[in-house]
């Protein structure tokens, strides 16, 4: 929704000063105009696709969320304003899913930050075998999430799996808390390398001279890390955290394969999927979609406004 409206207003305001600028620089105007036209032309396919596939569907999901719309009972479709929101927001399943999602997000991102930082330091400073480490850490990033999830599921299946056997053969995936721990492990394994790569790019910005000087002055390794490395890479850390938090918040693949949302382990995405595809309830599914969109917007807002996370690309926009 927001994309289409901002697009309209911005092109509206952007168009009016343009002729003024063109008149000022008469000599440049032909080349400038051509450049501008080419810019729009080159961006059009990308912009139109992104807006067509997200803009209208978002508006449409707002409309759907205000209707009773169950594909099992298409005759009973009617406009009910905010009743779906009341239904969802008063449902214990929804709040359980919100909690599960929030806890999974906070726990996994926190552990990923610590592990990712260690991994980044290893990759950055390794004296031997740096290439091997960098290559192998990319494997969890590249592997299909569903494949990794199946690997974890079979590992924890009593009888089949080595981990289940090692821990005495308890079916861990059939209880809420142990299942969520397994889901967290799977999620952390898969996404820590990505975090580490982003952090490693930040580490490269820390000048070696500064660290050496601090070492000369007697700062310990830990002091150097906290007082020099972390402050300098703060922007990189915040960007990595923002990306991973938003990504973790939409957790779906791992949960689908590992628990399918049973025993109260549904995330908000899982619950939406179940209502929509299994329950064929478009009204409720869309309501949940809108609520998730709002929650993600709040998270992004908090990161960008409160923590001052520099949104990538927002600073320069390519000016040189």
């Amino acid at each position, binding site marked *: 929704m927001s994309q289409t409206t901002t697009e309209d207003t911005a092109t509206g305001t*952007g168009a009016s000063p*343009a002729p003024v600028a063109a008149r000022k620089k008469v000599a440049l105007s032909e080349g*400038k105009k*051509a*450049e501008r036209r*080419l*810019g729009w032309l080159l*961006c059009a*396919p*990308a912009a139109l696709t*992104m807006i067509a*596939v997200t803009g209208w*569907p*978002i508006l449409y*999901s707002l409309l*759907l969320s205000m209707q009773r719309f169950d594909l099992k009972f298409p005759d009973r479709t009617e406009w009910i304003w905010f009743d779906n929101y009341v239904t969802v927001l008063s449902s214990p399943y929804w709040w359980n899913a919100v909690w599960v999602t929030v806890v999974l997000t906070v726990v996994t991102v926190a552990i990923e930050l610590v592990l990712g930082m260690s*991994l980044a330091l*290893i990759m950055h*400073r*390794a004296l*031997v075998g740096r290439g091997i*480490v960098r290559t*192998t850490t*990319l*494997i969890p*990033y590249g*592997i299909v999430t*569903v494949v990794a999830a*199946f*690997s*974890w599921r*079979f*590992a924890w299946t009593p*009888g*089949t*799996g*080595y981990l289940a056997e090692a821990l005495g053969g308890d079916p861990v995936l059939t209880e809420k808390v142990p299942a969520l721990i397994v889901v967290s492990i799977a999620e952390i394994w898969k996404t820590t390398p990505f975090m580490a790569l*982003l952090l*490693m*790019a930040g580490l490269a910005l820390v000048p070696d001279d500064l660290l050496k000087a601090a*070492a000369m002055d007697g700062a310990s390794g830990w002091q*150097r890390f906290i007082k020099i490395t972390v402050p300098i890479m703060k922007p*990189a850390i915040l*960007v990595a955290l923002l990306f991973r938090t938003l990504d973790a*918040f939409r957790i*779906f*693949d791992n949960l*689908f394969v590992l628990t399918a949302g049973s025993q109260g382990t549904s995330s908000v*995405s899982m619950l*939406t999927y179940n209502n929509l*595809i299994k329950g064929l309830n478009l009204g409720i*599914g869309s309501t949940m*979609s809108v609520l998730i*969109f709002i929650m*993600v917007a709040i998270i*992004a807002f908090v990161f960008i406004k409160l923590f001052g996370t520099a949104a*990538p*690309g*927002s600073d320069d*926009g390519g000016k040189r």
Partner: protein
Amino acid sequence: MAGIGGAETTGKKVGWGVLNAVVVIYALFPVLWIVSLSFKSSATLADGNFIPREWSLENYQNIFSTSEFTRALINSIGIALIATAIAVVFGTMAAYAIARLDFPGKSLLVGVSLLIAMFPQVSLVSPLFEIERSLGLFDTWPGLILPYITFALPLAIYTLSAFFREIPWELEKAAKMDGATPGQAFRRVIAPLAAPGVFTTAILVFIFCWNDFLFAISLTSTEQSRTVPVALSFFTGSSQFEDPAGSIAAAAVVITIPIILFVLFFQRRIVAGLTSGAVKG
């Protein structure tokens, strides 16, 4: 982790060796386990041993003998390749404009693609499900290709515009001095220089499309357009009493091989692409 600028003593090297080994084991353990599972015979499948007691190719023969898997493999390859090609072409055009040209609405485009990169994909699933059903796109290749292009575009635009900024400006100016139009400068001068960046982006976008599960499971319903990750989750044994774990493991290995090959061959480029797109912006 400590030891900044210290001498490369043997002790340190051993320490690094151990750390490296820990990292490598961490990264490979789940992968080796699924490979091992895929080579177990049906008799030893459920023995819980990390290394197969009996090696067999039975699982691979099983998955390639049914259309369920082969069809899904064709769908996965076709959909991911088409989506990658379109996303990279659109992304290259837009990223060139963003990196090189001055035009109103540029920062807006960057903002919109950032929004989409952060977008909760599940929010699109409900409306797209209904829209694609009414347009007849549900359970077709284009029905998946469209959302893939959309979500790959921000990735492509960021990565590519970061690469494009590294390209020497002067060459384009020189081409223009020699009488080339901006369009010609783009095709003749910049495009060949940008090829490595474009290639890297293509790999990242392909991995993204190859990986997707949410759209694939929500917007397909039959073998006609189901991709491998979805087909995997629907695998059942050839009889009700057979454990599908072996088939799932074999299929999982088959779709993991191309990714691991990409990663091994293009490690440096993938790292550069991922970090340039996200950090330097």
